[in-house]
């Protein structure tokens, strides 16, 4: 399990990165954390001719939370998110999600941009970002563009990223103060990719009514899915168990779910419903407590 030979280009700033991508884009792979790319190269599942290493582009590594927007540089390591106080205060969902990503040694290298570019189904951070209101800023020699998560991740291992483009930044519109988040994932072992995962954030207005609800699921769904119909159906007065169960059932029935050798489709749907219901309950109950306090 040794990688095939490649040409190694190390870039020190965004300008060099942009030019290297313009020169080699289609034949190159960007090396950020390498926690997925290097295993694939070791297995020789991918053997790029050129590897562009952007680990020394320090300008892409930051967490900048102000007002109601949080900007995260593409080279920000998962461990930085895990350890970030402002993020865990203002965007608890991301903090919970990141703790479910593999193990600390992997989180010390893995990056926000890397996990987004790979778009592995069942990956936690893309689910959290899909659930929140997130824009992805992409850049190339041709210029910069901004895509919503839904337009960025197209399916399993499939994104809108062009060969000459890199992910520059993630911009998250923070949930309102007093919101509660819940990230529920099921996997057979601690740290594995999710069989099924659900992310929910809920907040209430002055009258205690649910006026902000974000919900998403991943695992067997290709790209993570935001469940807007469910969000609408459950906003307003607190749903009782019946209403919640019906909405969850409808939401999961409406999305495309794939089975595989290990987990058949009907089982995945069953578990998706289970984790979604748990996350909804956690977040709704959590937000109530905050309101009362």
């Amino acid at each position: 399990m040794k990688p095939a030979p490649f040409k190694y280009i190390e870039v020190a700033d965004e300008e060099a990165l942009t030019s290297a991508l313009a020169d080699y884009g289609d034949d190159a792979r960007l090396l950020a954390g390498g926690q997925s790319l290097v295993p694939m190269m070791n297995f020789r599942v991918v053997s790029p001719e050129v590897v562009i290493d952007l680990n020394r582009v320090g300008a892409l590594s930051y967490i900048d939370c102000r007002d109601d927007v949080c900007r995260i540089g593409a080279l920000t390591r998962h461990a930085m998110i895990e350890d970030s106080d402002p993020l865990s205060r203002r965007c608890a969902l991301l903090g919970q999600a990141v703790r479910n990503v593999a193990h600390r040694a992997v989180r010390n290298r893995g990056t926000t941009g890397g996990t987004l570019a790979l778009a592995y189904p069942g990956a936690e951070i893309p689910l959290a970002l899909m659930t929140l209101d997130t824009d992805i800023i992409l850049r190339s020699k041709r210029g910069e563009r901004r895509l919503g998560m839904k337009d960025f991740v197209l399916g399993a291992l499939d994104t809108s990223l062009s060969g000459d483009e890199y992910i520059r930044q993630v911009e998250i519109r923070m949930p309102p103060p007093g919101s509660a988040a819940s990230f529920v994932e099921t996997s057979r072992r601690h740290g594995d990719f999710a069989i099924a995962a659900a992310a929910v954030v809920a907040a209430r207005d002055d009258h205690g009514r649910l006026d902000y609800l974000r919900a998403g699921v991943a695992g067997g769904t290709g790209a993570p899915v935001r469940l807007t119909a469910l969000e609408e159906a459950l906003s307003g007065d607190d749903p009782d168990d019946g209403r919640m169960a019906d909405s969850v059932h409808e939401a999961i029935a409406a999305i495309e779910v794939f089975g595989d050798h290990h987990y058949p489709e009907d089982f995945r749907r069953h578990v998706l419903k289970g984790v979604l219901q748990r996350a909804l309950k956690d977040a709704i109950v959590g937000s109530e407590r905050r309101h009362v306090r």
Partner: protein
Amino acid sequence: MQIDRPFPQIEGRLEDARLLFGRGRYIDDLPVGPSTLHAAFTRSPYGHATIAGINKDAALAVDGVVAVYTAADLGAVLDPFPSIVRGAPEYRGIATGKVRYVGEPVAVVLARDRYAAEDGVSALDIAYEALPAVVDVDAAAAETAPLLHDDFGTNVVWRNRYRYGDPETAFREADRIVGIDLKFPKYNSTPLETYGVIAEYLPETDGYVIHGNFQGPFSLMPVLARALRVPDSRIRMVVPQDIGGSFGIKAMIYPYMGLIAACARLAERPVKWIEDRAEHLLGSASGTDRNSHIEAAVSRDGLVRAIRMNIRENVGAYLRAPEPSCVMRSLTTFSGPYRIESGEIEAACVLTNTLPTGLNRGYGGQQYMFSLERLMDAIARETGIDRIEVRRRNFLKAAEFPYRTTTGSYYDSGDYHGCLERALDYLRNEGWERMREELRASGRLVGIGVATCVHSAASNIGYVTLALSPEERAKRGYNAKSGTNDFAHIALDASGRLRVQIGTAGAGQGHATAVAQIVAREFGLGVRDIDVIDRIDTETTPWTITTGTYASRFSVVVGGAVQRAAARLADHLRIIASSLLDAPPDQIDIEEGMIRVRNSNSSLSLRQLAGAAQWNRGDLPDDVVQLHVSESYGAPNLRSPDSENRVNAAATYGFMADFAMVEIDPVTFVPRVLKYIAVHDVGTAINPQLIRGQIAGGIVHGLGGALYEHLDYDESGQMMSASFMDYLCPTASEAPQMSIDHFDAKSPFTVLGVKGCGENSAMSAPAAIASAVDDALSEFNGSIAELPVTPPAIWRQVAGAS
């Protein structure tokens, strides 16, 4: 002279410091010369295909590649590996004409380093014509199944029938017949260090030097030597100081030792190969998966009078030594801890397009104990007798030992009721049943499971020959097989320090520490006063056909030899001291490094004695008495099988009482083992800490097989678990909290009274955990008949019930 002292103990082990400082010496750490070539295998991407052509040109053109060999090239210096079953399809370790499993070696690329060798593998051009594959054992046994070995005419490569006592009468007169169908999965113990071989051919002697992280030499050395066409002693087998886990799997490195040695001969240069993880999962070895039916003739009060069993054993694409012994291992403790006096087993080994099988920790034990213990639970369910009570009623009683089982095993000692009671004490003291009720009341699915099993240790090589019929064994010219033996050498150097050499290499068990304890006790010394050499170089280490680290034999056989050698050296020292101190030998005591005349002030230190005996040998009388002693030890009561297929399959038989507590998430159906209790009769405990370590490791191997680890294939023969992302080894997070204790029913037969403990819960845990899952799913009438217990499998049981 009999020394009656407790074994001295130390904190930690003699082995620990070098391993903790990162100074272990594993196979990949050995220095190699600059002429050494590095090997990588091209492996089949198909489960079943004809090799239509191999073009080496592109691979040979790769920078750094020196040679590419296929079966046709290697066949010039390497014969097929002999099989235990005469007439079984040829096994060469590399594909000839056809590939029969994904990962089967097809070619070897030799290059200046491993990176370049893999470049050669990527460039090698092989044309395949795909054939239909078959991976399920029952499907492969069907007449219409695709044939793996066309000339052989069937995929059923071996079958046999064993009958003991009078099963017909027992079943005819039974009040009730309880039967179940079971599937045991394919998995292996997956040592964290993969295989590694460094081989060199010596043309001047027509011999080989092979370094490998091998558990042998034992009976697989002759298999290797035959294939390499040299006498056993022309292979210098060197096992490095440290092995990163072995678990039986490392015994199955032998075909690769043959292939790499053959490469070295053809290339006329040393060749090194370090297996990678993907290769290990695809192409090393595994335990067998087994489909079976087992049924019991049961009396009204729950007593089992006889067992009948039908076994379909999946041995993968080739039947290779030591298979089909996995089936035979089931016979060694056929009646378990119970008095079952009749039985019948019908067994068949079937070839499929999967990784060939071999030794794996517990070898055959986990498969069989799963059947027998699932059966006991089924009997409890059908008779309405409590699961534990039904076991108690069938247990042999302490007064009945030694006890000859119906298959010929000679159980040495035990107190099964007492040992189970000790385990139940833990269960009660830890409040398991209360905890289960509380968790259930809060809506969780929780269950407690039990397994009570006999573990055999120090197996009789003769049990393997049950693969042949009594008629075949009776033929003129047939060499009967029996016994297990080993040696130890001990020497006192001129500075008064003791050094012990044994013929086996450990892989983490702490052999050096245990050997030092045995010797230290004899001489009244501290454990750190003894140096131990526990690595193998067959050029200088004496070995026998049974020498090796397998079948929980170390403490029994090697320990026995060490004890004998130490005692004899002590006798020699007394004789020498008697002339120096002018006192009769039987009045001389050795303790704390001093030689003392009893009831007198006359003494000398071990150092003084050694100095005198080494430097002034001429002035001492008896020159027969030396400062170095070699002793061998053959475990007792081991004969070759009789004409009724009865054999005492092992030197000693311990007992295990295991309990598992399982929780299943009621929504996602993810199971987790919360707690585990294991109280095992291991006979005399030389080192309780090492014993606990062995049992704990075995529990998690069993846990892996029960819930997580599965070498599974899709219908086309693709392995669905060819990486550590999909082959799920349990982590610290999945491992249960454990309460482990040992119970001492000394063996009256082994030198130290020990009973071995290397495999224990690796065999019993799958059964105990399945039993706990049943209990957790009791409201759904859950009954686990197949492992691993996955969330979808539980979901199907629950959905089926509601």
